[in-house]
């Protein structure tokens, strides 16, 4: 697991701490969604886990590996980060070059490189674009190439920092479907920093941050049983939970349990088709 103990962080130019005494245990080989407003500390948490920032106090361990400067080399191999803006993460002149760049950075032997590039581009469905210029790709395709660059290194943990927020609905849908499949196939741990309610509903575990503190955490289906609490924090809810809340407001007794869209349809049909 990713064990976070009493983690605090303050940016040098701010008076308030971005994260304030955060203690969390995130499960490995699962998908954890970290949600909260801008300024809640979500992205700071991602950068601390990845070792891009050094905590003011507290510790992070990935299984037994302590996140600190001594272990950065190892950490870089175990954690991959996909950023929000697909245009800001390319260096290569072709898609394959771009994936190769990451491998060179990790001193992967030259004779292994081609096989790894082919395999990872295939895993994200971009093998036909190996010789394309990154600039010619759509946002969704760029994010898939960024993901291939990470898969090629073979990390155990992937952090998505609002990686789908700049994509159109189809690009987003395709990327999420791909991720879900890869996680299952490769036993990977995913931490997604997100505002997207669809991404939230796909996750196994959810952490809600508010003003640098943990407001809620637990299994996603458990958290979504009580959508009113999330709505109070002005967070976007999956469609079925929004509908559940609106019906409740209109005086309808909706069962207080987690219903996805399909089960919501079933419940409504049960009520009305009798």
């Amino acid at each position, binding site marked *: 697991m990713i064990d976070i103990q009493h983690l605090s962080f303050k940016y040098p130019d701010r008076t308030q701490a971005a994260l304030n005494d955060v203690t969390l245990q995130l499960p490995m080989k699962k998908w954890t969604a970290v949600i909260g407003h*801008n300024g809640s500390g979500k992205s700071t948490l991602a950068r601390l886990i990845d070792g891009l920032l050094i905590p003011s106090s507290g510790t992070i361990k990935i299984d037994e590996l302590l996140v600190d400067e001594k272990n950065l080399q190892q950490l870089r191999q175990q954690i991959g980060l996909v950023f929000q803006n697909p245009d800001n993460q390319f260096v290569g002149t072709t898609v394959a070059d771009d994936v190769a760049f990451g491998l060179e950075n990790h001193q992967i032997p030259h004779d292994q490189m081609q096989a790894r590039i082919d395999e990872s581009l295939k895993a994200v469905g971009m093998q036909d674009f190996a010789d394309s210029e990154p600039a010619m790709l759509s946002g969704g395709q760029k994010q898939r190439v960024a993901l291939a660059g990470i898969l090629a290194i073979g990390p155990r943990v992937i952090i998505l920092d609002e990686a789908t*927020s700049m994509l159109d609905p189809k690009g987003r849908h395709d990327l999420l479907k791909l991720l879900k499949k890869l996680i299952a196939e490769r036993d990977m741990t995913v931490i997604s920093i997100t505002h997207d309610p669809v991404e939230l509903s796909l996750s196994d575990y959810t952490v809600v941050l508010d003003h640098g503190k943990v407001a809620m955490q637990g299994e996603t289906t458990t958290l979504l049983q009580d959508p009113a609490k999330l709505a109070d924090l002005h967070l976007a809810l999956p469609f079925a939970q929004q509908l559940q809340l609106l019906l409740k407001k209109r005086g309808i007794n909706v069962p207080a349990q987690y219903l996805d869209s399909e089960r919501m349809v079933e419940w409504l049909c049960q009520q009305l088709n009798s």
Partner: protein
Amino acid sequence: MSAIEFLNVDYIYQADTPMAAWAIKDFSLKLETGSFTAIVGHTGSGKSTLMAMLDGLLVPTHGQLRVGEVVIDNRADKKALARLRQGVGYVFQFPESQLFAETVLKDVMFGPLNLGVSPAQAKEQALTALEALKLPSDINERSPFELSGGQMRRVAIAGVLAMHPSVLILDEPTAGLDPQASTDLLDLVDELHQKGTTILMITHQMEQAARFADHVLVMNHGQKAAFMTPHELFSNAALLNEAGIMPPASVAFAQQLQSHGLFLADSVPLTIEKLADQLTIRLKQGGRANG
């Protein structure tokens, strides 16, 4: 008189060369003053080319367009294009990337000054625009680059509104914003619409088109695939399928209910609230979930 009219407009990139590429083909359309049009379609369908012509960034290869009383065709001179731009405000995608001045106020004043407004008047227009965007006044003298993403976006939009456009074009205005900032921004656009501004909004989010627009323009391969009300569009499964458009979640949910044999009076609820209203009536009439 309609606010905007396109008449048999073609736009060909690099016309009369071997590289010639049709971006817009035989496009005609009239938009009423004060209307709110959502423009949807795939990347490369011609949405941005069409909007660039409205803003005078491109001139039609053939045909003509009119905004208010300004008519533009391929012989349009700089003066005509300048007059066109006076009435049209264009909020580009990720407009915050174009902020440049050392303070928020200077950035927002740049547009009106550029239109030849006096400095005092430009300042007044800038302050009004910043206020309309509900930005706190203590940021006016700060650098725009110190602000949060949602605030930077609003400063950039204030820069366009300060020019008092009668036609406002927005390209994916909520892309990359968090849910609360998106809702706030769309409410503001809706408010401008209520006050009489003609709005054209490019969007990939069908929920936004369904909720706010009175008409949807569907572009496909540089041509007008459809121009109709959201209700007409989202009722037309064949058209949606052909244009590769997913209906808003509330409509998709109603379809899911239908496939289970549950039919709603309005089978195309454009918003989740309209869906909830209908379900509530039904549940209170005959359901067992009577609260």
